């Protein structure tokens, strides 16, 4: 048990180090450091040993849980060694075919990263963004003792389908006052008669990009990428990460090829199932049964 406790303590300490802001970011400084990788490796060995022990004693829950976590670590190692994760700013338009992507994400702005050929081409043919109904954030201006002023947040107010907007302090604003008379669009800012400042806040409700892949032999696949629904082609996965504020000129895509992913996914489901089996089976009170279960 003592080595396991030391391993837990070392892991927690490394993770705590990783949440301290560091130049270069915690991922490269801490989580890819030889010390952390050695601890993760040692954890993997302990998990495999415990899994074997649990199999020998027919402790199925423990075997599945420990084996699952070991599989996650193994999958992550495969990803680290052979996976590709990169981002690309893709122009929107039928003429902008992309056939190569950066080999990895740039570690800092302006870093020159070599490009790798995909073996196929893709083009983002269209991009659409939709918004929720706007809300207005209400601020009040406060005079400062030094003669200046600042703004204090009061509340967010929704814009109703009909009727006036209730500002929450008994004051109301008519909907047409929040619309630009020239364009009919919602105003960015409105100041009420009493001096309250209403700042528009718009939340995107959905954004989607249409993408066309052209593989070898003129194979064509049309896909739609939405947040939480990536597109897949020829072993690569494409994720819609960001867009240019609604101008529709380009989108930011995350592009992945991850041979370790199936191991990680299987490991996650095994860990969930195993931990539920371990923790929800009936047991004697632990004071009487120190050997109960099979903690690593």
């Amino acid at each position: 048990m003592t080595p396991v406790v030391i391993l837990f303590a070392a892991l927690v300490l490394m993770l705590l180090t990783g949440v301290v802001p560091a130049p270069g970011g915690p991922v490269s400084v801490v989580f890819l450091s030889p010390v952390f990788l050695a601890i993760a490796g040692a954890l993997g060995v302990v998990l495999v040993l415990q899994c074997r022990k649990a199999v020998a004693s027919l402790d199925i829950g423990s075997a599945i849980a420990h084996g699952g976590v070991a599989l996650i670590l193994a999958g992550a190692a495969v990803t680290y060694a052979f996976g590709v994760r990169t981002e690309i700013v893709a122009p929107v338009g039928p003429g902008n075919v992309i056939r190569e992507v950066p080999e990895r994400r740039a570690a800092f702005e302006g870093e020159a990263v070599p490009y790798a050929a995909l073996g196929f081409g893709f083009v983002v043919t269209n991009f659409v963004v939709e918004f929720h109904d706007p809300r207005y954030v209400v601020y009040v201006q406060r005079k400062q003792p030094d003669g200046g002023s600042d703004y204090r947040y009061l509340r967010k107010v929704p814009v109703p389908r009909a009727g006036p907007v209730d500002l929450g302090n008994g004051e109301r604003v008519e909907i047409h006052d929040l619309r630009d008379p020239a364009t009919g669009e919602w105003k960015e800012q409105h100041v009420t008669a009493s001096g309250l400042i209403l700042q528009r806040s718009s939340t995107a409700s959905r954004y989607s990009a249409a993408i066309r892949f052209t593989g070898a032999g003129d194979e064509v696949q049309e896909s739609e990428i939405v947040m939480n629904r990536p597109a897949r082609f020829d072993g690569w996965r494409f994720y819609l990460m960001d867009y240019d504020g609604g101008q529709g000129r380009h989108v930011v895509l995350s592009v992945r090829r991850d041979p370790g992913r199936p191991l990680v996914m299987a490991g996650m489901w095994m860990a969930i199932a195993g931990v539920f089996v371990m923790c929800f089976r009936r047991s004697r009170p632990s004071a009487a049964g120190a050997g109960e279960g099979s903690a690593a």
Partner: protein
Amino acid sequence: MAMTVTLCLGMSLAAFAAAFACLVAGKERAGLLLMAAGWSVDGVLVVMNGLVAGEPPLGNMYHVMTALPLCFAPLYCLLRWRDGQGWLHSHVAAACILPLAGAFFMDRDVHWQRMPVLQSWWFVPHVLGYLVSYALAAIAFVLTVSRLATVRGRARRDPAGDPRGEAARQAVRYAVPFMTFGLLSGALWADDAWGVYWSWDPKETWSLITWLLYVGYLHAWHDPRWRRYGDVVQLLAFAALMVTFLVVNLLPKLGKSLHSYA
């Protein structure tokens, strides 16, 4: 609307506080009735939040703080009927007060709008998994603090010798599977959303620290030499949980985080 929300929160909070007072005074029937009343009012509030938002009411801190006490009702029933721990009622009432008191004093964003990244079928199970685990961890925390506050001498170093120590371990034992589900469903969701199941974001790292400390606590129970440190590990785990749940969101660094909405 704001007045109705404040009224419901106040009534629910008052019911749980009164329930706690009754249960500590040994008036079990009155205490349990008041707890049921607190849960009912809180349930009405959660339904109202859902109707106003038009979405599952789990989208912001106010929603989560009001939904959290609802998880305690089925968990109390589980602990009472499966493990014969009906005597935990006062601890459960105390644990219900904490999130509601937090919700009472915070900015209550009732008109929440669901952003694209949260439009996933993982959203409800992921948040619910964490809510259940946090509720159980809160019960374990209250039990441990109550034991450490009243026990002196050698008995203090032996949590297994006190029913509250054993009940705290049992609560953590039920919490860990839900926490594991919350952690890993978050990773599965991140894989769908961003193509990366783990990105060492501060929220993710703190949630892993919390999970490791709770798992470490359960492992420590299996060895009499380490069991006496179990209380310390559990208190540290709860502190890490609070950092994951609340403090990380206040860090300026989170402005760039993938979890800035959480």
